[in-house]
């Protein structure tokens, strides 16, 4: 028997052993309107998508018998919990969830490792985890709260949202995100906003040492102020100066003004301590 054959057999044994240790479970529930669904998964991925009607479907992939899934339904409140048993580790305690919930459900997701994913929902959602990457897409009319230490955060096509993102060192990317409040706080992660800042919201992007890039289309209307205490500030878009400013802009460190039509504009505050801030027009290359 050749060495290559032995290696293939060994690989096959490992793969089969791994697959054999995995267990797939499915749970189905009916909930009332405005349901609350929470999934707490110490280790593993959680994905949430809309279901049809009032049904909740939980597909769980358990990576070993060191972890179990506990579900508790109280009226329209469903708690899904990965229950770690003695001796569980990040590998053996892992559970990956695919969850389908009513589109208007309030969703709370927690996983230390992530990733966390939500799409096409319009209920309030909270996603958090220390190293969890977070990806939210095609969401409307929702309060979206995200907390992560090191994970990357991506919000795409989130409309009319009340958005609050806290990230310590992970990059935060907002693409076509609008709403009455869009707030990102990051200690060292880079913040990228690509979009038109809506029509009448408050947009606050703040970092300590991370750079901030705002990429806006030609027709954007917004009152913009940007300031970096020690970093460079660049503005590629001509702004109409404001009559009154709440700080004295220093060349290269701050700018303030209005772009587009002030009457229908949002308020945009870009602030950093040592990060660079760059406001620029969207081009075919940056799209």
């Amino acid at each position, binding site marked *: 028997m050749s060495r290559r054959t032995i290696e293939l057999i060994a690989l096959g044994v490992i793969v089969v052993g791994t697959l054999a240790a995995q267990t797939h479970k499915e749970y189905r529930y009916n909930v009332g309107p405005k349901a609350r669904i929470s999934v707490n998964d110490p280790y593993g991925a959680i994905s949430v998508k809309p279901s049809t009607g009032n049904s909740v479907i939980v597909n769980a992939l358990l990576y070993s018998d060191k972890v179990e899934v506990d579900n508790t339904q109280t009226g329209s409140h469903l708690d899904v919990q990965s229950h770690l048993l003695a001796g569980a580790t990040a590998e053996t305690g892992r559970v990956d969830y695919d969850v389908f919930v009513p589109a208007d459900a309030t969703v709370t997701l927690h996983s230390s490792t992530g990733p966390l994913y939500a799409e096409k929902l319009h209920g309030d959602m909270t996603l958090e985890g220390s*190293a969890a990457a977070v990806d939210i897409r095609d969401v409307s009319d929702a309060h979206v709260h995200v*907390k992560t230490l090191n994970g990357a955060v991506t919000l795409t096509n989130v409309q009319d949202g009340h958005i609050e993102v806290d990230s310590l060192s992970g990059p935060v990317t907002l693409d076509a995100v609008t709403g009455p409040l869009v707030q990102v706080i990051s*200690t060292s992660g880079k913040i990228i906003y690509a979009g038109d800042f809506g029509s009448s919201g408050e947009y606050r992007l703040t970092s300590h040492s991370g750079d901030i890039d705002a990429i806006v289309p030609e027709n954007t209307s917004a009152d913009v102020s940007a300031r970096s205490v020690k970093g460079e500030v660049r503005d590629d878009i001509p702004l109409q100066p404001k009559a009154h400013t709440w700080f004295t802009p220093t060349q290269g460190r701050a700018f303030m003004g209005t772009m587009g039509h002030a009457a229908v504009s949002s308020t945009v505050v870009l602030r950093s301590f040592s990060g660079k801030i760059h406001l620029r027009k969207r081009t075919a290359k940056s799209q």
Partner: protein
Amino acid sequence: MTCTELQESLEQTEYGTSLEQQNHLRTCPECAALVRELNLISSSAVQLRAADEPSPRVWNSIQLALQREGLIHPPRPARTALPSFGNSRGWARWLVPVAALLLITVGVYVRQHSSTQVATNIEPAVSVEPTSEAALAGLNDADLLQEIAQQSPAMKAQYEQDLSRVNQYIQDAREVVATDPNDEEAHRSLLEAYQEKAMLFELAMDRSLP
């Protein structure tokens, strides 16, 4: 259906919802009163849960801590994760969210305190150590790193770096406030820096759990 059968059936279905149960309840005032009380307790319990219960992971964390201590064993058929304060580690788990709340409160206090000084033209109060408020709030970096080192040694270096970053954020924000006490955005920035540190403690404790 007899009274005994009705009481047994209540364990299987919602209180008084089946046709047989309803037929019996129409003719038995004692059972009807029992069902009314059960429904009242049930609805009140739901409200209590919604109002007072911390997140499920808190219960899970406490339960796991108790299991590690050998004080409870994983109950197989019917598990419960009721909170217990009788164990020192259980109390320790509560300290983090409480400390985080305290930290935010201190942040608010610092902001208000600074604002007051602006109004009265007194010197800005940024002369204490950058993390002294955090220490007052019970958020001690060394304690956190020790907990991380015990639970997730591989993560310690990452959290040391994270703590260093967020402490620098607080220090820099305080300096900006000191430079221009009238700058409302600077005050906001200081508060956000504290918020970041509170989040770090909150999520770090989650991460350090098994």
